[in-house]
């Protein structure tokens, strides 16, 4: 069996498709409506958050609720520095800060098992939110701050770039030996350690990488809101929503994750203004139904259906 040509095929085809899609999307601002540009920016945001979440929590099977932490810090750094620095520099700087912070958080907490880790990440979110809020109330006297407004098209293009980068990174990691190693850590951590995998370094690294993208997304999206406060920036919905999107779409396949993000981002956009409660209700229902009947999400369902009709599918994505 020629393993090499097989590997090449699975790299080239998706890569070319992604490139074509990216080129089309990049051209959009010139002929798309303002509404659709904003709409797409939000969809990109969710794709980045969801893919970032899956990068870590997918293979390691440790559910992180820290997504909103990194996203929120991205927003805040953008707000604080945005007055002084051009967008590019600011995005890079915030990304680096977030990665460092993720390294610290990761290093400290990755020895927490299962549920403890999840509630820790959740507690972290609440802590930071309340800490910043207290700080603002006590010292600066105001809650929230104003953000420099940036052109919608610029936001769109930046988000497109970040989305592309995130997807590319996720894809490359998955296909590499590191992706395999991460998967092995999630399945049998002790055995993985015994075949030479430095579990702690791997987990912390991927955690930091995912945090970078979440942060970057936050920094760019911050410029969409003219005014932000801690409760908006560190909104726990940014932690929960990516989880739902990923689970619904199917954690095992990157394509599933993206589709889950698109579907829910779309639903949110059309329902959130008129029927916010119905949207969240639907959200909850889908979550429960997915847990009960769709353990591998939509992607898993599609895979099973394909395996049954075609007869023998792939072992892994």
């Amino acid at each position, binding site marked *: 069996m020629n393993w090499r040509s097989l590997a090449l095929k699975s790299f080239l085809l998706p890569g070319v498709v992604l490139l074509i899609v990216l080129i089309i999307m990049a051209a959009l601002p010139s002929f798309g409506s303002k509404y659709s540009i904003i709409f797409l920016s939000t969809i990109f945001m969710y794709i980045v958050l969801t893919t970032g979440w899956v990068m870590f929590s997918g293979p390691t099977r440790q559910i992180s609720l820290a997504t909103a932490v990194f996203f929120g810090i991205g927003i805040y750094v953008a707000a604080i520095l945005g007055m002084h620095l051009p967008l590019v520099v600011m995005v890079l700087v915030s990304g680096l800060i977030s990665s460092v912070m993720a390294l610290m958080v990761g290093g400290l907490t990755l020895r927490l098992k*299962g549920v403890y880790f999840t509630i820790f990440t959740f507690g972290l979110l609440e802590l930071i939110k309340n800490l910043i809020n*207290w700080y603002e109330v006590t010292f600066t006297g105001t809650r929230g701050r104003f953000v420099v407004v940036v052109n919608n098209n610029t936001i769109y293009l930046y988000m497109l770039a970040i989305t592309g980068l995130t997807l590319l990174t996720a894809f490359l990691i998955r296909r590499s030996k590191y992706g395999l190693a991460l998967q092995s850590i999630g399945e049998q951590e002790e055995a993985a350690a015994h075949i030479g995998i430095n579990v702690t370094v791997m987990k912390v690294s991927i955690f930091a990488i995912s945090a970078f993208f979440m942060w970057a997304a936050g920094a760019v999206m911050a410029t969409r809101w003219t005014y932000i406060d801690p409760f908006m920036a560190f909104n726990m919905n940014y932690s929960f929503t990516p989880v739902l999107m990923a689970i619904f779409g199917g954690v095992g396949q990157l394509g599933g994750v993206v589709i889950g993000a698109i579907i829910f981002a779309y639903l949110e956009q059309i329902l959130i203004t008129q029927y916010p409660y119905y949207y969240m*209700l639907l959200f909850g229902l889908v979550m429960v139904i997915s847990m009960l009947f769709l353990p591998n999400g939509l992607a898993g369902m599609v895979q099973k259906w394909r395996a049954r009709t075609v007869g023998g599918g792939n072992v892994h994505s």
Partner: protein
Amino acid sequence: MLVTILDVGIAGLLMGGLYALIAMGLSLQYGVARVLNIGHGEFIMLGALATWTLHTVYGINPLLSLAVCAPAGFILGYILHRTLYKRLMATSASPGIFEGNSMLASFGLLFIIQNLAYLIWGTRYKAYSYLAVPVNLGGALFPANSLVTLGFALLIGVVFYIFLVRTRIGKAIRAAAQDASTAGLMGVNINRVLALCFGLGVAMAACAGMLISMNYSVFPSMGMEYTVIAIIVVVLGGLGSIPGSFIGGILLGVIGSIVTYFDAGLALVAYYVIFILLLLLKPTGLMGK
């Protein structure tokens, strides 16, 4: 000086009694049924809003409405476990995966219940006044309803403790909390016990909701704050230890009261700092295994 200490201390106990009650329910659900019910606060909210409705629309005494809310909560919880969580247990490959899945399912429940509440009750804060008369305790004034709350919390805690230690079912629950599969082998109908515990947890949440509605205003999104506190207390007391949750609740309430005395805005921050430190340094908490 003494008055201040008394003031802070009793305020802490009042808060703590409520925290203890909230935490005990969650501790029961996680400690025995291994479900980290993130939606716990939503059941508290349901109890609170139901009590408000019964009081303002039908003029029913809040303390009496307990007779309706608690059993209703129990039944709701029992059914939820027998349908949702039992199936999750069957489809989860390992206990660890089940814990993750059941937590995510509880998230889903959180959104469902909270938004149903929004649709039924609307967004406006609601409140009613009941037993708002001040009571003088050693020079400090406390509203009667707060004292009733503490009294109730203690009562429910003690009754429940006796239930756990003296009755057959209570013993079955404790056995299941220690080791579910062995308890099953010893003849305990494990499915029923787990569902029972979950139901009791919800019933306790409903009670807590009733008590909260007596003291504070209620609204559909009030639940999360209590869920978080319940989690902190459960970790503080030790995951799986119900007496631990009780003590942890009182302790956290007192700490919160002390911190509030110095700077009200720091109370929540203090809670989270304690929480984070606990998880990093002693995740098993005060009395956990």
